[in-house]
């Protein structure tokens, strides 16, 4: 066999291997939808997504409480992680002297490498207890505890992507601003951060995906009660009516109440669910929601990242 033929052979064999990732993704989609479809023959998709009552014994499958709690915990995590993560990224990219950078980088890698179950264990023993004692609540297993743990877990991804995009801001932008007499902080605020913004945004989106999909830490600290808080019922207009301001005033209350995330529901209810039954199918439908959310977020952030790299160069 001459070498051209051999090369073509190797190339086609490698091609087969390289589509495995796409194949697995396709299989995940097929299997998730295949199991979830049975639910949608009984319950309409909109009733499933926006229904507020989840009670498999009575045949009620409303996923909205889970979606709501996942979003609340994620928003809370973002409020903590964005300022902290972006300023740490600025520190690493712009301010840190060499030794401080060398000391911080492995810390962030390690933070990313700690298994989620250990975050959960730590959260349950330290943060949940701390919240319970310091705020004098009946239970410390709250949305707030989930947000704090999720914040720690998404910090590494926000930091590393923000740092990359801050570092990819052309040096000339910065020098030009400094030459005009601007201080470091002015340069950072008016020149560097705005230029790096798309990349930072992409990192945040990836962090949102991570937080929504996180399972083990959330299931341990969130308390797992899918009873919808009053404020959500009002938001949905099912009970009574109230002004927008009243609703906004009540939002902080939810932070101090237990909740149950999408991921937790799948994990906790798979045991009791009967294989092939409607409940089992409904849990796969929750998986479909999760998959769609994270898929869209991932595609969006990669699109932003690829666009911003081109524009920076």
């Amino acid at each position: 066999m001459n070498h051209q033929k051999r090369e073509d052979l190797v190339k086609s064999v490698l091609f087969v291997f390289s589509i495995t990732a796409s194949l697995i993704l396709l299989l995940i989609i097929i299997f998730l939808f295949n199991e979830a479809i049975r639910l949608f023959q009984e319950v309409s998709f909109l009733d499933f997504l926006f229904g507020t009552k989840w009670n498999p014994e009575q045949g009620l499958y409303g996923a909205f409480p889970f979606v709501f709690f996942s979003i609340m915990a994620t928003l809370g995590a973002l409020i903590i992680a964005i300022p902290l993560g972006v300023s740490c990224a600025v520190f690493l990219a712009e301010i840190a002297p060499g030794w401080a950078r060398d000391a911080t980088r492995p810390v962030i890698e390690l933070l990313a490498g700690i298994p989620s179950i250990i975050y959960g264990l730590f959260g349950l023993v330290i943060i949940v207890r701390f919240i319970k004692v310091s705020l004098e609540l009946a239970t410390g297993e709250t949305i707030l505890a989930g947000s704090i743990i999720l914040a720690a877990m998404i910090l590494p991804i926000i930091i590393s992507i923000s740092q990359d995009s801050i570092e990819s801001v052309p040096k000339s932008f910065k020098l030009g601003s400094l030459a005009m007499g601007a201080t470091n902080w002015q340069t950072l605020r008016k020149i560097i951060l705005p230029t790096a913004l798309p990349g930072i945004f992409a990192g945040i989106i990836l962090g949102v995906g991570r937080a929504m999909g996180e399972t083990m830490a959330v299931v341990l600290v969130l308390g797992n009660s899918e009873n919808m808080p009053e404020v959500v019922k009002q938001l949905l207009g099912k009970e009574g009516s109230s002004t927008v301001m009243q609703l906004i005033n009540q939002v902080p209350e939810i932070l101090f109440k237990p909740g149950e995330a999408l991921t937790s529901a799948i994990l906790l209810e798979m045991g009791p669910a009967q294989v092939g039954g409607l409940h089992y199918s409904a849990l796969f439908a929750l998986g479909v929601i999760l998959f769609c959310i994270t898929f869209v977020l991932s595609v969006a952030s990669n699109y932003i990242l690829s666009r911003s790299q081109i524009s920076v160069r």
Partner: protein
Amino acid sequence: MINSKTSDKVMKGVFWFSALLIISILFLILGYVFVEGIRVVNLSFISDMPKNNWREGGIYPAIVGTFYLVAVALLFAVPLGVLTAIYLVEFRKEDNLTSIIRISVDSLNAVPSIVFGLFGLSLFFYYLKDFTGGPTIFSGGLTLGFMILPTVIRTAEVALRTVPLSEKLGSYALGATKLQTISRIVIPSSIPGIITGVILGFGRAAGETAPIIFMVALNPTMPEFPYLFSQCNALTTQIYYLTSEAISIERAFGMAFVLISIILISNYSARLINKYLARNIRR
């Protein structure tokens, strides 16, 4: 009004503070797990069989099971990931197909771990039950393998891309074919990067819980012949079991200590191997 010099200094302080805060978060978590863990961890904790539903004795089956699962995951993901990376870097110009593969890899990386758990449950536990035997090392290991495939592909890709063009061109100039260049120049000099990827994949697989939670046994189980198709325990799932069922938080911390040690040692050795090979391969 705060003048610009003052705000400059204040913001500098803020940035230093945020980095210190993040460092202290890490040390708080690691420190707490070590302090709590070291109380229960000793040689027999690691090497004995558990007794009384994991309340006494050791955690040997969980450690062994974790290694079995991770071994299967790596055997699947490493060859496949490296070959995919070689194809993407050496054989293919950027076109629609490579961008489809890349989007798939990124999306696969973003799939939540519990969704992998659902997928494994549906595919291996029920659909292929006759072949996999249901919740076995094979099923759990492959599910983990699917999950770490993107990590391996990405790190291998980065490693392959760092091979200098001059070395490849030198090889071609000496009359080597493309396959010779890849097998004698490109792969050997990217080995350190690939090994780093393998070890990162190892750490990630060992620390995952949700993908294997439907695939492992909770009662103490030692894998028996045929190993691939027998049941096993895992460290992560046992930590969850002991914590959520309130069996023993102390022993959950002992397991967490062992798990973190495995991950820290593997990460550190990845760095050492990388350094050592990087120095020795480039004669």
